């Protein structure tokens, strides 16, 4: 027989575990005292699960109520009043509802390989409605009124985009799904495709019906074999049931979807480059205008939307635009999925309404910074975005707010950095990425990116000069203004935001030749602290380049000219006698 109540006890870190155990035993004692042992189970949750609260807290199931700041009195009253007598306790709201799943509504719920599971949750009902009960104008109007904006990064209104393609006259139009998720640290689209492939297919068919296209392409990273497999299966299943392919549900409307692979080019996330790649060419961007909505794949009007945008569509159709637009902030409607990674306790995917403060995502949902380190910054928008420092953590996330503080929404990568991360180093990482991924077609991006990287290498290598910063700004501006596509235009964003919010770190590197975070190897110095050293000689033995000299009598010394800063000596020293700085 199941229990009537379950009390899940959580804590925010290992250090509170003792208190958590204390709490559990206290609860159990009280429960036993009320003779409720067969009625209530008290369990401890997984140790990384937390909601950023100090000290342990509980969640009562099935009531789904959270209670924080527990005192012995509170526990006693919960057991005596609520568990024994059924009087509702004074709980706070449900923390889980900070998340709201539209895009991920089926992920982790349905079997993505069974179309029945999808249909059970009203899958393909939106398509049915669009085909039979709505005119294309009504569909586009509904999307427009919903306020849905492109989730690929720039946030262009989806309904408007569709209307351009609808109004373009052509014998052939296309719908393209951009599944070339390439932002390092972002994997929302992969999860959506793996967990709910039909929602994207359904949305593409809806788009086809609305704009007058009969062919769709999904351009997906070849590095996502599972997503490809599940999409292929989904297309097959939907076609077999007459939900895709020719004459859908006997309506006369046909829509066929083909899958095309990318091949490792981030720039192909840019619409025009993506289309070039779909055409089997080198994926280099083209100047816009003309926009793909009017002149796209093989010169034909083409709707290009990303996976997450599409995944919203069936819900918008079924639940209506006013329902959708009631979620989110004033100018950004609906939800946004973020892949929160980096130095948070709980890396993972979160979907929150637009307008949720960054702090809620990082500290509540994702559990805050791991290992009790200090939050330094969060990067959104990947290599095109910027770092956001602590002072903006309460900024409600939406397209416009993020742009205003020097970053951008991007596709949804959210990389959290702590005190061990060096801004120059992180900038270098992103620049290296942008340089690797530049298509090389236009000079500002191709050469400018390489030059910026050179400066960053110089600065992290201890050779930086203050005037380099001015030159970087100048190059950054030229790239922003004269690059052909968004990749080049945004390459300097991480640097610009770091210079704005973490100028002192640049100054440290350039003027004081110091990397406080200890990341920039050339600026690092390993020094033996004689007071702590017990002269055991382990450091000398493990040093791979024999940079440590001395003996057990006189002590040991690191030759800085030989040291390769591998850190092995420090790692192996049991007495914490080697300082890294």
């Amino acid at each position, binding site marked *: 027989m199941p229990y009537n109540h379950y009390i899940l006890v959580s804590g925010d870190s290992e250090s509170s575990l003792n208190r958590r155990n204390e709490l559990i035993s206290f609860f159990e004692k009280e429960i036993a005292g009320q003779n409720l042992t067969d009625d209530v189970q008290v369990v401890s949750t997984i140790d990384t699960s937390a909601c950023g609260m100090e000290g342990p807290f509980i969640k009562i199931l099935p009531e789904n109520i959270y209670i924080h700041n527990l005192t012995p009195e509170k526990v006693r009253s919960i057991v005596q009043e609520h568990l024994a007598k059924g009087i509702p306790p004074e709980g706070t709201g449900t923390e889980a509802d900070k998340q709201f799943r539209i895009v991920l509504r089926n992920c982790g719920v349905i079997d993505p390989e069974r179309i029945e599971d999808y249909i059970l949750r009203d899958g393909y009902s939106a398509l049915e409605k669009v085909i039979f009960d709505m005119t294309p104008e009504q569909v586009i109007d509904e999307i427009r009124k919903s306020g849905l904006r492109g989730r690929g990064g720039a946030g262009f209104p989806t309904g408007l985009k569709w209307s351009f393609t609808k109004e373009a006259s052509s014998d052939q139009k296309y719908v393209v799904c951009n599944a070339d998720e390439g*932002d*390092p640290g972002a994997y929302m689209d992969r999860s959506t495709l793996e967990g709910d492939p039909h929602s994207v297919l359904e949305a593409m068919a809806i788009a086809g019906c609305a704009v007058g296209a009969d062919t769709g392409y999904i351009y997906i990273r070849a590095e996502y074999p599972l997503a490809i497999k599940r999409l292929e299966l989904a297309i097959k299943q939907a076609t077999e049931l007459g939900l895709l392919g020719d004459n859908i549900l006997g309506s006369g409307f046909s829509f066929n979807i083909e899958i095309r692979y990318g*091949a*490792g080019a981030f720039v192909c996330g840019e619409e025009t480059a993506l289309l070039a790649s779909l055409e089997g060419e080198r994926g280099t961007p083209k100047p816009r205008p003309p926009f793909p909505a009017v002149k796209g794949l093989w010169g034909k009007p083409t709707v290009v939307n990303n996976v997450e945008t599409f995944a919203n569509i069936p819900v918008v159709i079924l639940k209506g635009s006013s329902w959708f637009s009631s979620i989110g902030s004033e100018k950004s409607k609906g939800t946004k999925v973020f892949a929160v990674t*980096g130095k948070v306790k709980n890396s993972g995917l979160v979907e929150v309404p637009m307008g949720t403060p960054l702090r809620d995502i990082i500290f509540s949902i994702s559990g805050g910074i791991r290992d009790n380190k200090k939050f330094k910054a969060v*990067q959104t928008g990947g290599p095109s975005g910027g770092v956001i420092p602590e002072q903006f953590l309460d900024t409600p996330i939406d397209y416009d707010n993020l742009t205003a503080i020097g970053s951008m929404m991007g596709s949804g990568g959210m990389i959290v*950095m702590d005190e061990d991360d060096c801004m120059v180093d992180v900038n270098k990482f992103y620049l290296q990425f942008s340089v690797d991924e530049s298509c090389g077609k236009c000079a500002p991006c191709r050469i400018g990116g390489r030059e910026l990287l050179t400066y960053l290498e110089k600065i992290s290598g201890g050779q930086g000069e203050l005037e380099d910063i001015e030159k970087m700004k100048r190059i950054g501006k030229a790239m922003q203004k004269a690059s052909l596509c968004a990749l080049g235009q945004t390459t300097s964003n991480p640097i610009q935001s770091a210079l704005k919010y973490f100028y002192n770190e640049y100054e440290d590197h350039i003027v004081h030749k110091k990397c406080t975070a200890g990341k920039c190897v050339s600026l690092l110095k390993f020094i033996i602290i004689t007071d702590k050293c017990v002269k055991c000689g382990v450091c000398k033995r493990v040093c791979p380049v024999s940079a440590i000299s001395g003996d057990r009598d006189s002590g040991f010394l690191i030759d800085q000219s030989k040291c390769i800063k591998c850190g092995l000596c420090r790692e192996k020293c049991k007495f914490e006698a080697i300082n890294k700085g």
Partner: protein
Amino acid sequence: MKEHIDQTIKLSPEILNHVREWKDKPGNLIMILHKVQEEYGYVPREAALKLTELLDIPLAKVYGVLTFYHLFKLKKPGKYPIQVCMGTACYLKGGEDIIRELENLLGIGVNQISEDGLFSIEAVRCIGCCGLAPVMTIGGEVFGKVKREQLAEILARFKE
């Protein structure tokens, strides 16, 4: 038009079927190159030449595409290609150290093949397992939350 192709390579029936299936679809080149690479682990020049004949396209076009996309290889990789994720999460959690240690252990650099032909190292873009950072794959097998000290042992398993 007549092509002069050195017939030193015979494409497998699988590839030929794939080519036949895709031949008339516009924009097919990348899909076909994927198939060739799937079979050889890279795209041999002879195979590329053969494709120019089958698809009636210039070799310069094939190479333009091959060299644009980093996924395509022109050289044979090791038997167990090692891919180390250099996505942001993996980078922050020490992806670079993993590469350095692998280079150390195998005595080769990134994009090189070990002398015994068993391993090659590659730094790849985010493979979408950020929760498991730092991540690497060896011959398709994924290793998450990799620690520098584990590497020698992991490699040894493949050497057997």
